[in-house]
């Protein structure tokens, strides 16, 4: 891919002075840095990420959460409740039960431990309304767009509240099912055509056209 005085960025590796891509994707050169924007990946948690997960199991002191990643996440009771947790008195299933969806934040993860989540921050917690769309986590930066241009356009055009989880799960809640359907359609189109250029304009046009037909 490149040879000489370059540094290997994301999804690349260096042998001697040569840089090779280790994933299928689009190459970006920025100064001396070479990186590959992958077209498909799994979600690898990283502290600070906002994710959407599903409660899979309830333990005596917390929950096991599926966050669409090879690693199961742990949500401890003291990261979920606003008061001190008493094992004898508090029934965890009354807060979150199996199958519930939560919006959470990753607070710790590395190679040796499973990701640990928290919902003790404003805006986080159990999801009570809206629709869920799943895309490849590699497409998330494209859905957000440069300086959030894509996501802001989507919110404006569809009048929906869109919450993006870094793990490829997106929550959409809008004033009507029709608006939500439109947002889902747009997101699926973005994921499908993520590697093409001029996407924001094309999506905006598509939404307007769809709205014109419906209204």
């Amino acid at each position, binding site marked *: 891919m490149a040879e000489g005085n370059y540094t290997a960025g994301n999804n690349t*590796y260096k*042998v001697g002075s040569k840089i*090779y891509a280790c994933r299928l994707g689009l190459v970006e050169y920025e100064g001396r840095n070479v990186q590959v924007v992958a*077209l498909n990946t*799994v979600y690898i948690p990283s502290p600070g990420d906002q994710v959407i997960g599903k409660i899979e199991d309830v333990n005596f002191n917390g929950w096991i959460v599926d966050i669409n990643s*090879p690693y*199961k996440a742990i949500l401890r009771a003291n990261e979920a409740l606003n008061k001190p947790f008493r094992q004898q008195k508090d029934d965890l299933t009354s807060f979150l039960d199996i199958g519930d969806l939560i919006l959470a934040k990753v607070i710790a993860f590395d190679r040796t431990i499973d990701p640990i989540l928290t919902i003790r921050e404003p805006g986080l917690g159990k999801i009570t309304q809206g629709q869920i769309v799943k895309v490849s986590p590699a497409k998330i930066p494209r859905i957000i767009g440069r300086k959030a241009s894509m996501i802001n356009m989507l919110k404006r055009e569809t009048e929906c509240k869109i919450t993006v989880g870094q793990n490829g799960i997106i929550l959409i809640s809008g004033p009507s099912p029709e608006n939500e359907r439109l947002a889902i359609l747009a997101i699926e189109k973005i994921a*499908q055509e993520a*590697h093409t250029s001029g996407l924001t304009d*094309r999506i905006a046009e598509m939404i307007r056209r769809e709205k014109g037909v419906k209204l």
Partner: protein
Amino acid sequence: MSGKIRLIDENGLRVDGRRPNELRPIKIEVGVLSNADGSAYIEQGKSKILAAVYGPREVHPRHLALPDRALLRCRYHMAPFSVEERKSPAPSRREIELSKVIREALEPAIFLEKFPRTSIDVFIEVLQADGGTRCAGTTVAALALADAGIPMRDLVVACAAGKVDGVLVLDLNDLEDKEGEADLPVAYMPNLDMISLLQMDGQLTIEEFEQALNLAIEGCKQIYKLQKEALKAKYLAIKEEVETCLQ
């Protein structure tokens, strides 16, 4: 042994009309299964193989997980209808061995250490067998891995060379494999110039072995180009569709 059947005719052509150093026609498609994380399909002559990759995902059973890297599991399986006489669907001795050699051929190409405590599962299903299935299986499994977005040092590509009727030939089919004198499957990573699988069945002199190995590597390089094209084709098709829509 090969007295009854002539594998090379008077013009120097093989049973299916190929020249000695010619590959069979190859058709590759990537992303054919929507339920798998990555998938690919290959038709190499009359051999037809489907590969699916799942993962990196949680390991079941749990105790198999490795603390420092991902566990690569591979299943090579021949469909009961893939050969002339119905094959029992239970894994045979041969299939278990091929699963192992394919796994070991793919292992050095994958950055397994990036996903500790997970597993990457590769399923190779032979739908129709006409020789060279371990090679085509390796080629197509590497594509399915790349399609699944698993970081790899290089694509692995495999091709066999061998000797039939005293002539060194490339990419043997079933008849040549069974009736010929020798078969030499090679899996190769062209960018790194490394061999990850080398088996030999039959007898070759040292000079013949070296020539056959070089022939197989040349074959691998040809397939490698097709592999890369197939990988890009999945995304180029969408791009072209978009561009024609715009015009």
